[in-house]
């Protein structure tokens, strides 16, 4: 699997915050989830990749080409969706489209019309009248109408109800059916990633903390519940987070495969990884 996007040593300093040595790669054919709490640096990283924010150091390569030198050509292959939309609200769907479309050399009007129909959007609708869910769908309609190979989305699911979120996941899976595509989306809602993420990248306080295939992550970690009498100095060390009550303990360990059997063990991958994420945040 070739890398679609390679970010290396990205550095950006702000008065109150900085991105430090951010490096990761997005592989083709993968949906990469970019997780982090609010303020961790997700949006800044995305904006830096897209050139909206100017980096202090580091390199960004797409399909092997440097972004700095080939910006216009590369952006033709990127579809973007921002949580805020950044649309001119007083314009209609069609008017806004007419502003964006001419910049893309592969703009496909037929695909766009199709997308509008599918999402039940009317070309004459004013953007300010659209609900959050419709706005996101509009953003996707735009992003998917120029044969993009990489879809970058900044918090596409925030403020959306579960049904719409599920629809979005289906759209992304459909997008991935074609070869050579990639999706990169940031979120702080971990349940979104359960369904479709292949790789998880966690960012915290401007640094990349984790970058792994989702299943490997789940395999390595385990949620252990048991009798607190089983906890001693040795066993305590095996846990990343530990929650003890008078009824028992519950903890996340990243030594599941190697750990010696702790009795009364029960593990559940899905619950695991939510706890792991919460645990990391607390533990960091």
């Amino acid at each position: 699997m070739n890398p679609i996007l390679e970010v290396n040593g990205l550095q950006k300093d702000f008065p109150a915050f900085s991105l430090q040595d951010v490096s990761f790669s997005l592989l083709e054919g993968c949906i990469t989830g970019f997780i982090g709490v609010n303020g961790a640096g997700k949006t800044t990283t995305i904006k830096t990749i897209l050139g909206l924010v100017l980096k202090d150091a580091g390199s960004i390569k797409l399909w092997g080409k440097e972004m700095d030198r080939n910006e216009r050509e590369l952006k033709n292959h990127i579809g973007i969706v921002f949580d805020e939309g950044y649309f001119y609200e007083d314009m209609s769907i069609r008017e806004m489209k007419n502003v964006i479309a001419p910049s893309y050399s592969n703009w496909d009007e037929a695909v766009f019309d199709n997308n509008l129909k599918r999402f039940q959007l009317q070309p004459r609708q004013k953007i300010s009248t659209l609900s959050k869910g419709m706005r996101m769908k509009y953003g996707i309609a735009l992003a998917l109408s120029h044969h993009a190979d990489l879809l970058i989305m900044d918090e596409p699911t925030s403020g959306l109800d579960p049904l719409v979120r599920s629809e979005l996941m289906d759209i992304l899976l459909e997008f991935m059916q074609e070869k050579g595509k990639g999706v990169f989306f940031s979120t702080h809602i971990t349940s979104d990633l359960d369904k479709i993420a292949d790789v998880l990248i966690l960012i915290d306080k401007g640094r990349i903390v984790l970058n792994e295939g989702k299943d490997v992550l789940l395999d390595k970690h385990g949620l252990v519940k048991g009798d607190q009498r089983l906890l001693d100095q040795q066993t305590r060390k095996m846990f990343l987070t530990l929650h003890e009550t008078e009824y028992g303990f519950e903890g996340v360990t990243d030594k599941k495969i190697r750990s010696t059997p702790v009795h009364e063990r029960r593990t559940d991958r899905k619950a695991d990884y939510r706890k792991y994420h919460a645990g990391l945040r607390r533990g960091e």
Partner: protein
Amino acid sequence: MNIIISNVSDQPLYQQIKEQIKAAILHAELKGGDLLPSIRALANDLHVSVLTTKRVYDELESEGFIITRAGKGTFVAPENLELLRESKRHLVEVKLTEAWETARSLGISKSELYAMMDLLFEEDEN
């Protein structure tokens, strides 16, 4: 073909999938030349990462069970009797080892175990 993954098993996900596909091939549920789903389709259906299904297919291919033809897809490799026989033996070996270790940990001797096996086979033949 049924692939059922357990979230509470100790076995890594990729291994569970790999073994179940292998078992399906060994039990002739999947025959030589059968088309397998793409890594993406399999990943979507099983709700696992493509990296996992990719690893499964890569390993099955290097072990000779499946073949990928560029542009056409991934197929079950044509019947390789030697490979099949070896793998079948291996599967049984694994089960036998499990049985033996369980017997040993419970204090059941080798001769007792053999007697048990004879009994079971006799019952089965009847």
